[in-house]
């Protein structure tokens, strides 16, 4: 399909979706003891200043719908999330849980790895993020991410109050991803016996000045053994640890995370370690407009054998963006970024519409 036709079809889809949304007096589908949410998005990406031998396209158009449902009966809860997009159809989360006491819950199934905070704050919901895309270090596995964002197994989470402040905790144990066809492949709920998966375990501990408030300061660690015959190695041991802060004082909101990553290749003496960090300040001008920026940087990454497996990883990025909220629960976002991978420097412009039905 030519670019003009693609742009026109995107425009009409956006127009009809907006009219449909505008005609509805309420959002989301409420089912007895549960909820059903639909989160669609349309996105246009333009890359400039690419090297002549670059693998990246000049422009790209993405679309997808994230389906989410939850059901609760007494202490039992079910939660499911499936993403249907241009590049994939996947069950992203499929979990059941039992509440223990007032504030703790044990989950079984496939869930998002409690690594840092972003991954369990926004999940796949583009609408909920101020920005269009996640930081590169926590990109999902099928979008070039090299950290395990999904685990299949057990998750225990909870919190307790102390003088109106809160201490929260999450512990995860289960099957991590394997390295196949140049990317990480998480445990698949539809084909649980497929592929080769090994252990992944994580903890996340955080302090909330106001219990259940948005501001949190935390630390985390994740250890994963990645079967990686596809990379010419037997297994890769990956250890990620770090600190994060999520600070809200309206109209300001800041989210930032520090990552220390260490890898060992079991069948050789190869090993490596590097540091990555990002910080994203957001300024809510009013209920309609939000300005945001983000800086991502990677240190000591030269010749890292694990990073060499992911040549398109964006090591450094400076990004600025604007978000416009319109109608009810619709958002238009425009981002401009300067990016550096291991091979090239380029500029990118992203434009996205996202919504919640």
């Amino acid at each position: 399909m030519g670019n003009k036709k693609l742009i026109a079809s995107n425009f009409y889809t956006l127009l009809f979706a907006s009219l449909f949304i505008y005609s509805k007096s309420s959002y989301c589908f409420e089912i007895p003891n549960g909820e059903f949410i639909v989160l669609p998005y349309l996105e246009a990406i333009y890359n400039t200043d690419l090297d002549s031998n670059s693998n990246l396209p000049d422009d790209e158009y993405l679309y997808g719908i994230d389906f989410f449902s939850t059901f609760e009966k007494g202490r039992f809860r079910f939660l499911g999330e499936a993403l249907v997009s241009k590049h994939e159809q996947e069950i992203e989360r499929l979990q059941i849980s039992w509440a223990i006491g007032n504030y703790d819950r044990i989950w079984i199934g496939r869930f998002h790895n409690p690594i840092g905070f972003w991954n369990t704050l926004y999940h796949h919901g583009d609408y909920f993020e101020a920005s269009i895309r996640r930081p590169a270090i926590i990109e999902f596995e099928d979008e070039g991410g090299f950290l395990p964002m999904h685990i299949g197994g057990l998750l225990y989470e909870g919190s307790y109050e102390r003088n109106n402040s809160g201490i929260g905790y999450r512990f995860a144990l289960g099957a991590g991803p394997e390295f196949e066809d140049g990317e990480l492949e998480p445990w698949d709920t539809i084909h649980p016996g497929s592929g080769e998966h090994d252990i992944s375990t994580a903890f996340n501990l955080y302090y909330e000045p106001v219990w259940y408030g948005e501001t949190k300061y935390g630390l985390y660690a994740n250890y994963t053994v990645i079967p990686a015959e596809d990379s010419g190695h037997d297994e890769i041991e990956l250890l990620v640890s770090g600190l994060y802060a999520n600070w809200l004082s309206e109209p300001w909101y800041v989210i930032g995370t520090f990552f220390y990553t260490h890898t060992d290749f079991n069948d050789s003496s190869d090993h490596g370690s590097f540091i990555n960090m990002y910080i994203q300040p957001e300024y809510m001008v009013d209920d309609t407009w939000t300005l945001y920026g983000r800086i991502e940087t990677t240190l000591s990454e030269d010749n890292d054998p694990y990073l060499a497996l992911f040549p398109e990883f964006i090591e450094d990025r400076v990004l600025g963006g604007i978000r416009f909220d319109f109608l009810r629960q619709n958002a238009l976002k425009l981002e401009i970024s300067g990016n550096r991978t291991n091979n090239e420097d380029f500029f990118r412009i992203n434009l996205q519409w996202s919504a919640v039905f």
Partner: protein
Amino acid sequence: MKYDRYIKILLFCFFCLISLCQLNAQPIRTIVVVNGSNSPITSLSQTEFRRLYLGVPVRVGNQRVKPLINYSDADIEKLFLQKIIFMSKKKYEQKILSNVYRFGEMRPDKYSDVDLLINELKRSPDTVTYLWQDQVDKYEGIKSIGILWTGQTE
């Protein structure tokens, strides 16, 4: 020129009188936490109430307390958001929708008809909501378990 002073004093008194009349025109009203008379929940502080509506789980015995949103009256809706939740309607609805997506929490049911709201309180002993104090006196089968706000409506 000496009359200027008297005119200023008279104007000052006039505006004071107008202001006093305005104050007297607005009756003092109270918003209270309410549940069914048969409910085992006997008290809920303002802090607990706010947490409940922001998605923090509150249990009495083995039963989780379910908040119901009262949108039956524009004044009570405005005061609930401004004086208790401290958020705009848009931000509040985004916040509770985000809780659904993050934790699988249920959003509180919303009622724009006060009779339906009262019926739900009577039917489900695990539910709570907020009403004007004088409304509680009018209906049977419900009780007040705490004061949320007292003042003059604008």
